[in-house]
């Protein structure tokens, strides 16, 4: 996946001179996850550069650049280190278009390696999507497949709106043969990753692989589970998600983030409001506990495991139907 993201950046920079890539260690080093590998050598220090170590500075600089026609793609080194930039994101990146009634805007991509599952120490594993999703004016997307990593990043860079691009850290090393010439999916579309008729698993980012695995195991036990990858948290694709839930009448939302006031909660609310009469059971969540992200030796308790997903599916009141 890291390579697909790298290719997306390279292709976008080749196609459009105004695309700039900057952040901490993204220059000669190529980023701590090597997503910007080789870009500094290929495009020079004006197009791909290291900044001083200051996240608010990085995003604030991007606002001014975007105001004057550049297309910044900035890297926040890790999820929890993006918080110093939060004021710029919320007060300016998200609002510039609205404040000026469209006269100015701040189209940019804020890339955030996010979520856990890699044995990282604290501050390297936060799932921060709800903070961004709660802020009108931002698009929030997260790829779960290698193909989407490429396609969604291209779409994000081309978007006239600012996009918070959440890269699931534990999927950086996932591998897949990808046809880069296939059309780039528009932001705002969920996709059905696996067809199924008994229940729908709704997941995004790092929660997608365990959801797929759970569906595979359930199939062996005779339960047909559909798996939806949300892909775009904002805008949210009610249509695809609700169509899927109506077709199965049962749903489980799977996410790694803390559950309270979360994106998963929002999805449950939306599905319930729109599909209530099609539901055979309350929509369940398999989410993180309401705790700060645990240390590496305990993190497996926090992550949505295949077992927990299957348990939640079993809880969907099958005996009543």
């Amino acid at each position: 996946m890291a390579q697909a993201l790298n290719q997306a950046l390279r292709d976008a920079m080749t196609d459009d001179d105004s695309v700039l890539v900057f952040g901490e260690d993204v220059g000669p080093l190529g980023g701590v996850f090597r997503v910007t590998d080789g870009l500094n050598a290929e495009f020079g220090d004006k197009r791909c550069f290291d900044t001083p170590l200051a996240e608010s500075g990085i995003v604030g600089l991007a606002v001014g650049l975007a105001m004057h026609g550049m297309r910044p793609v900035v890297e926040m080194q890790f999820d929890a280190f993006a918080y110093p930039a939060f004021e710029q994101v919320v007060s300016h990146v998200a609002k510039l278009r609205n404040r000026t009634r469209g006269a100015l805007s701040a189209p940019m991509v804020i890339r955030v390696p996010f979520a856990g599952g890699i044995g990282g120490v604290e501050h390297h594993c936060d799932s921060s999507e709800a903070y961004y999703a709660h802020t009108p004016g931002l698009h929030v997307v997260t790829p779960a497949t290698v193909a989407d990593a490429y396609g969604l990043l291209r779409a994000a860079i081309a978007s006239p709106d600012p996009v918070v691009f959440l890269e699931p850290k534990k999927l950086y090393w996932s591998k897949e043969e990808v046809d880069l010439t296939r059309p780039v999916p528009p932001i705002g579309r969920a996709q059905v990753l696996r067809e199924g008729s008994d229940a729908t698993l709704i997941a995004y980012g790092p929660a997608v692989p365990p959801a797929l695995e759970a569906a595979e195991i359930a199939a062996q036990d005779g339960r047909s589970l559909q798996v939806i990858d949300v892909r775009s948290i904002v805008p949210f694709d009610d249509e695809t998600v609700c169509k899927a839930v109506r077709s199965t009448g049962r749903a489980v939302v799977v996410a790694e983030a803390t559950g309270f006031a979360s994106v998963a909660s929002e999805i449950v609310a939306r599905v319930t409001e729109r599909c209530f009469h099609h539901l055979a059971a309350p929509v369940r969540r398999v989410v993180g506990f309401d705790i700060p992200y645990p240390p590496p030796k305990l993190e497996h308790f926090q992550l949505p495991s295949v077992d927990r997903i299957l348990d939640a599916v079993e809880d969907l009141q099958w005996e009543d139907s």
Partner: protein
Amino acid sequence: MKSVIDDLLPTDEPLACISADGTAVLDSQIDRPNDSALLAGYAALVRARRLNDQAYALVRQGRLAVYPSSHGQEACQVAAALALDDEDWLFPTYRDTAAVVARGVDPVEVFVLLKGDWHSGYDPRRHRVAPATTPLATQLLHAVGLAHAAQLRGEKTVAMALCGDGATSEGDFHEALNFAAVFKTPVVFFVQNNEYAISVPLARQSVAPSLAHKGIGYGIPGQRVDGNDLAAVLSVLSSAVAKARAGGGPQLVEAHTYRMQAHTNADDATRYRQDADVEAWLTRDPLTRIETFLRAEGLLDDELAASITAEAEEMAGHIRGGLNTDVPPDYRHLFDHVYAQPTAQLQEQSAVVADELERDTTDPEADL
């Protein structure tokens, strides 16, 4: 031998050009602006004062929700705008209405924000004035980014970013100075030190010898100027802009001035400062100072002064007229400018409001 720091160090005292009583030209290290620049500055200053007075009156009449006045700081306001060329950008805060107007933006459009109709009423691109920011010091980084973009495009643009003394304590102030210095970006950081951040005096904000000294740590030259001396502020800012434009990197200028009125109409300044302090500053009023000087020099007579006042009066009338006509803002603005294209969810929400309005106008009881 001269050290690197000598080139960055501000003077011990703020630079001044004209004495506080307006009677003499001080032997200063700075060039006195030419006569026509001084006269243009004076006319803009008269307008700025009139703008402040008018806004204050409008707050009392309930026509403006709030007004952070720059009364007493008008020399800084005017000079910030006049030091720039057309291609340059100004990055103002909530206190810098008079600077925005001096840059040429229609005051009625500027007041759209304070009136409560919308967040920014003017087109930022037209006059190259960013929308005024309220979160402190955040816009300093935008100025650095914009100037950096201009530099990449080979333009000669300079960005002038304004902030107050309190804002220099914010992280973004320091990040902006550092970024600008590292990238050698053409930005002029202009701090209007009016001695208070709402109620907190400068001594609680910083113990640096001056705010201009803060540039040294970043490798940025700092300059202190008497903020109530129009000639001095014009001169210092103009040369800072020229240095930035010529590739000299960012510049930091601190003007020493005073906020004569409360922070906003919602603030009670008597709780944290003495009347005597305010009165002492009356004798240093920027307007009387330049006016006395121009008259002594024979550059200004009653006739010219009257025509400048009349022109400012006309502007005040234009503001009153503009704020008297209440065009209700369009509800669609709520939804139309969140994203380039409204999302499906926003379209639904917009339809809800449209439906409510429709019911309001068709409901026969609505008029009762």
